[in-house]
């Protein structure tokens, strides 16, 4: 287990390095001068600004400085927001995105396992048909559409009730978080439901379930201990990529619900060619996602001992 863990962590570090390099290359291929919209009124000021951001040095040197900064956990100063460090931007806004993402993943995982198990239990009967129809619908509707229409619905509900049941937009209390995290998690939940259903069906027809039945175990025990536990395994494997999809998919939900998360900063930074913020957020997100995948992999190795042998 220890060697496996170390191997995965080492792989993760190399991956993060690759992400950082790819970001650096992509950023330096972007046409346009990041200082063009600065207040460089003459040559001297332009030179000073370039010096301040290290743009006067050769690209190879900038790359070394950039990697060194990452090693020290320092992403530099924002280009467009005077004297604001990228670290501060991440520190202030990432918790918001992370909270939203964690809630969404929790919602997706719980809902997916619950509905998947339900559909498998009621195979080809009404609950199965209804849920699977909703699932295919949820997979097919883009998240921004769901977000917009849930907002419209909330407005109507609040007007009808005469008081604010759940806020339509904004961030702060738990009540603000409910609808956005549900919207964000919906697509993943639908995907997990399908996965859970097929995995449940596969388990149900396996030999050890028949043995358990033959032994005369109570159905509830068979369901919980044998079916559910084994059927959840494939769901756990895709949780890593699911977290990745959800955190980056959060951009749109943050935009629609006016949530002050990191995604909005990234989009703004891209529009303003804010080099340091773009590189900082990308590397940060990349490292976060890679570590999430590793955590899920290790978790999986812990749940299912067969994996560790590989």
């Amino acid at each position: 287990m220890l060697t496996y863990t170390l191997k995965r962590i080492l792989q993760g570090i190399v991956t993060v390095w690759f992400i950082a390099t790819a970001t650096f290359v992509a950023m330096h291929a972007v046409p346009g001068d990041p200082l063009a919209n600065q207040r460089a009124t003459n040559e001297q000021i332009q030179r000073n600004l370039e010096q301040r951001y290290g743009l006067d040095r050769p690209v190879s040197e900038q790359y070394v400085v950039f990697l060194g900064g990452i090693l020290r956990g320092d992403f530099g100063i924002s280009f467009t927001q005077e004297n604001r460090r990228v670290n501060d931007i991440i520190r202030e806004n990432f918790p918001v995105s992370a909270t939203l993402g964690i809630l969404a993943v929790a919602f997706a995982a719980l809902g997916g396992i619950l509905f998947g198990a339900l559909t498998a239990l009621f195979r080809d009967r009404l609950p199965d048909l209804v849920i699977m129809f909703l699932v295919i619908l949820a997979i097919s509707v883009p998240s921004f559409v769901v977000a917009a229409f849930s907002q419209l619905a909330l407005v109507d509900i609040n007007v009808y009730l005469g008081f604010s049941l759940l806020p339509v937009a904004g961030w702060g209390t738990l009540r603000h978080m409910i609808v956005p995290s549900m919207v964000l998690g919906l697509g993943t939940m639908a995907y997990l439901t399908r996965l859970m259903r097929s995995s449940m069906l596969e388990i149900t027809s396996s030999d050890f379930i028949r043995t358990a039945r033959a032994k005369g175990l109570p159905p509830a025990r068979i369901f919980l201990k044998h079916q559910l536990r084994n059927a959840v395994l494939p769901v756990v494997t895709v949780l890593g990529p699911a977290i990745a999809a959800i955190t980056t998919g959060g951009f749109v939900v943050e935009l629609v619900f006016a949530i002050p998360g990191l995604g909005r900063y990234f989009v703004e930074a891209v529009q303003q060619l804010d080099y340091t913020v773009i590189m900082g957020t990308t590397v940060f997100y990349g490292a976060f996602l890679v570590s999430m995948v590793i955590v899920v992999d290790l978790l999986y190795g812990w749940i299912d001992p067969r994996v560790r042998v590989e």
Partner: protein
Amino acid sequence: MSVAVRFSPADFEPVTARRQLQVSSRPSLSYWQDSWRRLKGSRRTFASLCAVMALGAMAVAGPWVWSVDPAAQDIDQISQAPAWPSSALIVPPYTPWAAVTATPTQAGDVVTNLRLAEPASTQAVRLVWEPVVGAAGYVVYRSVYDTAPDRALGLPIGEVLGADQASFEDRLDLEPRRYWYSVVVTDENRAEQSAYAALTVDTVRTVSAGDAELRGWVEDATVLAPGDQIDLPYHPLGTDYLGRDMLARLLYGARVSLFIGVVAPLLFVLVGVVWGSAAGFLGGRVDQLLMRVADFVIALPFLLFMILFKIAFGIGPGESGVFPMLVALVLLGWPSTARLVRGQILQVRQEGYVAASQLLGARTGYLVFRHMIPQTMGVILVTLTFAVPSAIFTEAFLSFIGMGVAPPTPSWGSMANEGIRTMLSHPHELLFPALIISATVLAFNLLGDGLRDALDVRMRGRE
């Protein structure tokens, strides 16, 4: 004594082997025939296949059939909801209207006899009333909602000063609809009285002959006489916030969105197939190297890098930004297919029939084209079908956050982005693009599910 045995020639005829040969009761089916039969058998899959083909036909032929310019603005019908074709009444050109004055004869805090001086039209609404003694002036309000229930008078659109003023002309952005006008008297401190006179006005869409010619509805203005009806350009799905025809934009948007949604998956699945089969077939060091590269690319946060790559390629002035998006999608999309194909190739390579074929002297090319590719084709096809909705989603997502196709090129995502800003007042501008994106993705998802079942080797020969 010997018995003469007599043989007849017939005895030397060979005995015919009358083995009961097994006759197959129906002609054997090839893998693809069998799959096609199963695909046709599933009503849902067949319907989704038809829907996908209809969408393709719509994207190709749509803009010819409905040949309205998607960039043309109809300034008479902005943010128009879907409606029946409407027409306008031809009226004489606008002539200025002199304000009506009358000596106030009545006391009180509200004007009386509020009425229209002439039929209300979209050209002008002309109100007249009996003025009040001692009034400093009159404020005119206009509302698009009924003012009676909660005394919400709407917008103050004008004020006339002087007790003897008895008229107001409203020309502000009039639409053919019902308006609720209210006139409020102000006292010497210009404070508004609480009482108000109200009038409900239904405006008629009118246009002058000169304007009709200017907008290109008629060749020559002289054929129109006041009192004629003229048909307005018809927008079956309404117009957007700039007065552009929604149907035309949806059809052109289909070209953009479906082009990206279909061509990008085709390209990256192709790259993935080549990459994966090379890795799976060559094996060893090459395999390790190729797959390590794929691992790295797969680890990149997809949407962040879509945005980064898209801006790295840049959009010049006048370009639509479709090509950069295509390149970015291909660059980031291929590794999952490559992994899948490699796995398939490795699996097929171990099959007995491949070894048999090799023993019989089959060359590499023959092996690849006769055994490997047909065996993996089903999986590749299913991947391709499922890659289409995700590419459409990505395009819509990027256009939605303003990083996608550059305006004025219509795409479904950018239309949804524009529609979401006015979704409270004009929901149709969001609804139609959202519906068509969802329907397209739904069709491809159902088709993918059906194909997966139909091409599943384990399902062979079953209905």
